[in-house]
């Protein structure tokens, strides 16, 4: 079993000061390369295994542009890996260019009430549906408002999850991380009904494929 970690540029060189990266192997194509290891029959699927995998990706992201591969992806042989790499190389090369010198930041917008009130039971099916529509519209308006506030510092946006909580992944140039944080703070100061949390910087998990913002 060959467990895949990340797509990197074809000219990628392993740093000498990261033991977690040094143990990985590399299949190199003309345009891109893929990092992998061979964990044997028990690759590990517990929480600690995911955290360790994530730490390797975070260390890799510090060495240059990467496209993290979804946890648990594997191929059977190196020939399978080379075949996959050849098929996906043009798209991957384009995305590596798009995420180069960027980091992913995730903004959580939470209900700011100390104790959210109980939901009022709907008197009819129509009322229930309308409450869902209103919640969707409210979430959409909140997303649009946040997107406008951080637009000068963000290359791409992806809305994550569902309407229950607004989570937005932002692809931010590394040079703009501090201005981005400041923009979120200014936006949050105007929203007394919400609490805001920003996590990151992360490898570009949410930006490995070209797509429209949510």
């Amino acid at each position, binding site marked *: *079993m060959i*467990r*895949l970690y990340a*797509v990197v540029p074809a000219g990628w060189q392993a740093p000498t000061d990261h033991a977690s990266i040094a143990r990985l192997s590399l299949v190199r194509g003309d345009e891109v390369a893929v990092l992998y290891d061979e964990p044997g029959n028990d*690759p590990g*699927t*517990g*929480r600690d295994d*995911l*955290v360790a*995998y*994530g730490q390797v*990706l*975070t260390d890799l992201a510090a060495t240059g542009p990467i*496209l*993290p*591969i*979804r*946890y*648990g*992806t*594997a*191929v*059977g042989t190196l020939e*399978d890996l080379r*075949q*996959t790499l050849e098929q*996906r190389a043009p798209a*991957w090369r384009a995305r590596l260019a798009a995420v180069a010198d960027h980091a*992913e930041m*995730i903004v959580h917008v939470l209900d*700011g009430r100390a104790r959210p009130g109980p939901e009022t039971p709907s008197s009819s099916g129509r009322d229930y549906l309308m409450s869902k529509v209103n919640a969707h519209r409210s979430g959409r308006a909140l997303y649009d408002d946040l997107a406008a506030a951080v637009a000068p510092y963000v290359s791409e946006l992806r809305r*994550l999850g569902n309407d229950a909580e607004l989570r937005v992944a932002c692809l931010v140039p590394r040079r703009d991380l501090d201005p981005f*944080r400041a923009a*979120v*703070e200014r936006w*949050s*100061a105007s*929203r*007394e009904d919400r*609490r*805001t*949390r*920003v*996590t*990151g*910087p*992360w490898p570009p*998990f*949410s930006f*490995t*494929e070209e797509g429209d913002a949510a």
Partner: protein
Amino acid sequence: MSAEHAVEHVGAGEDLALVDLLDRLIDGGVVLTGDIILSVADVDLVYLGLRLVLAPAREVSESIRLGQKSPQEK
């Protein structure tokens, strides 16, 4: 800005960021499908507020899975 409306900044290495890391590892990243791709981790993720409980992953069967839906999608 009042203290209660200050933004909470959480670095990638902090415990509070763990939910985002785990979520992105299994719901983000490059997705590969096809008859040469094996999926070795089909992890059910259950959120309990900010606490995260990982259900045991199913073991990979010998056969190669093609676009098989996760339990959450079924």
